[in-house]
């Protein structure tokens, strides 16, 4: 019995050792150099470790952001003796306390910089401030911190992007100011500011450009495609005069798309935030009218560049807008649109979305 017990203990430890072999190397020796104004700057040419902490492991958006970060790491790696990008996130963007732990553990691990997409603007604030005080540079991407005590913020202005989306829908899909009817929204949650901002921006736009239209409110989808499908099917049944559906992330949009196809309600127009191949195909078919695209790849790429600049003792703008692009059926094959889509789908070609 004792033998068996010790065998299993060794097996457990063995599995850890195996993982130990496949981990990315941590930053080795760091040299902290004091600049003229007294701040400590990491002058590490032996390799740099940057950790990207996303809101969750659930969304493909973070993979795109990570790809951008890794591209920057590869491009500038030689100057720094190699840049390693680590990635971690809670399983769901509801586990905000886990982000605090991830940030604290990153500091213990000795990373040089952090890219954080906070699931809450305030919850990780203390941890981020502690990290900065410990000499780690922190840049918030996609979602800002409140108060903005990170070194910098680089993300989309969700309110403006969705307001632009609403304007496009009203002017080009509906009847402009005279538009009547109802519109509904699918939001992935009402707890993260990114989600709330997109919804607020869309509603603001609808109220400004189509004052006669009525909102039927929002439904929370939890980024669950199947659940969104049921919710939208119910929404369609309940509201006869529904003209527009707005989904504020890619999974909510997929669920909405499925529901529209399933119900055969192709007279209802939909628009969304973020994009993927299926949504692009649907756009060619005329089911999806417009998508507000963020720049996840750029957020990762520029985020890493900003961290490297900070490590060099340079200054970076405290808050900058990573920009957005309104993708439509009309412009989807232009160079600008393809570049924007490539933020999400690496190496995308227009033929990829043609059936």
């Amino acid at each position, binding site marked *: 019995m004792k033998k068996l017990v010790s065998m299993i203990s060794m097996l457990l430890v063995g599995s850890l050792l195996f*993982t130990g072999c496949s981990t990315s190397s941590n930053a080795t020796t760091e040299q902290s150099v004091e600049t003229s104004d007294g701040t400590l700057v990491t002058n590490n040419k032996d390799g740099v470790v940057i950790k990207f902490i996303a809101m969750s492991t659930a969304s493909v958006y973070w993979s795109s952001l990570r790809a951008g970060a890794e591209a920057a790491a590869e491009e500038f790696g030689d100057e720094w003796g190699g840049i390693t990008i680590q990635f971690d996130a809670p399983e769901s963007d509801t586990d905000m306390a886990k982000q605090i732990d991830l940030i604290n*553990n990153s500091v*213990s691990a000795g990373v040089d910089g952090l890219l954080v997409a906070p699931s809450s603007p305030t919850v990780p604030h203390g941890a981020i401030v502690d990290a900065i005080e410990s000499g780690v540079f922190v840049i918030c991407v996609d979602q800002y911190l409140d108060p903005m005590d990170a070194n910098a913020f680089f993300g989309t202005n969700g309110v403006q992007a969705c307001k632009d989306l609403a304007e496009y829908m009203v002017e080009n899909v509906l009847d402009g100011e005279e538009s009547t009817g109802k519109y509904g929204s699918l939001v992935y949650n*009402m*707890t993260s500011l990114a989600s709330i901002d997109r919804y607020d921006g869309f509603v603001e736009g609808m109220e400004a450009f189509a004052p006669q239209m009525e909102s039927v409110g929002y439904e929370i989808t939890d980024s669950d495609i199947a659940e969104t499908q049921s919710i939208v099917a119910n929404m369609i049944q309940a509201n006869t005069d529904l003209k527009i559906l707005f989904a504020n992330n890619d999974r909510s949009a997929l669920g909405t798309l499925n529901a529209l196809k399933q119900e055969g309600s192709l007279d209802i127009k939909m628009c969304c935030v973020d994009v993927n191949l299926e949504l692009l195909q649907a756009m060619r078919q005329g089911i999806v009218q417009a998508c507000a695209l963020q720049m996840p790849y750029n957020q990762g790429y520029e985020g890493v560049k900003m961290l490297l600049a900070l490590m060099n003792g340079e200054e970076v703008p405290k808050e900058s807008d990573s920009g957005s692009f309104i993708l439509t059926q009309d412009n989807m094959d232009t160079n600008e649109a393809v570049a924007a889509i490539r933020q999400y789908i690496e190496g995308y070609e227009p033929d990829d979305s043609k059936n």
Partner: protein
Amino acid sequence: MVAQRNTERTSNSTKHHILKSQLATILIILALLIVFFAIGSEGFFTIKNCYNILQQIAVIGIITVAQTFVIITGGIDLSQGAVIGLTTVITAMCMVDFGLSIPIAILLGLLVGVIIGVLNGLLIAYLGLPAFIATLGSMSVTEAIALLVKGGKDIYNLPQGISEFAQQGIGNVIPNIAIIMIIIAFVMHIFLKHTCFGRYIYAVGSNEQSARFSGVKTKSVLFRTYVLAGFLCGIAGIIMMCRMSGGVAIAGKGYQMNSISAVVIGGGSLFGGEGSITGAMVGAFIMTILANGLQIMGVSSYWQQLITGIVLVGAVLMDTMRRKKNLN
């Protein structure tokens, strides 16, 4: 008569022996993990990281104590995460929206835990619902209430002292919230092992019918167990609120899976009648240190999940095999 008493004494000491072995085994695993991570990464074996680990385990540690009581009775509490969330919302609301003082707000927050505990106790002890179903139901209801109360929006702008309390500790070695967890674990350990009520809990979990025939008021014991568990989850909720500096309806969602794992690693049986707070706390430490160590080593989060699952199954496998062997 004498033979019977001897058999009883033997089976008691066997049970005692089984538990002791499991405790020894998991302590060895914990020690091995610590050594492994200390060697594998510079940042692990530092005072600062120790502080972080204690902060990271505080909430889970307290709900693990609560879950231990429940699992020993042969039940399970799936509503723990939801109670944490609702407690943070109600307590924060009391302070921010109603301007109540911190002590009063905390008392009301604790009341939330007690109320859910009472609900669970009524459903399980007096209406006879299976614990899994009853607490699954109370979990849904509690989650919904937490979201309905403020339309899913978070509550911030708590008094400054709250977040400071969560971040500070004694001499940067032990966080305040960990001290609370340690005190609770210690007191509840004494309560479980050295009071009549504690013994009744084991009796009800081992064989409810026999316990009832022996004169134990089983329904009352079960009811009080769930109320106690709810109260402890309320405390965990308050601590969660301090850590997050806010009332967040979805805070703690799913945390009961961690507490159940910890209890089971610690030698608790899901069939009831067995378990200990010491074992469960070691189980909680194993899981927290595993997560902490793997993150510091830069292991991807997907691997982290895999390894945690392997460790959990491995620990339970060892326990199951040892029981089988002892039965033979």
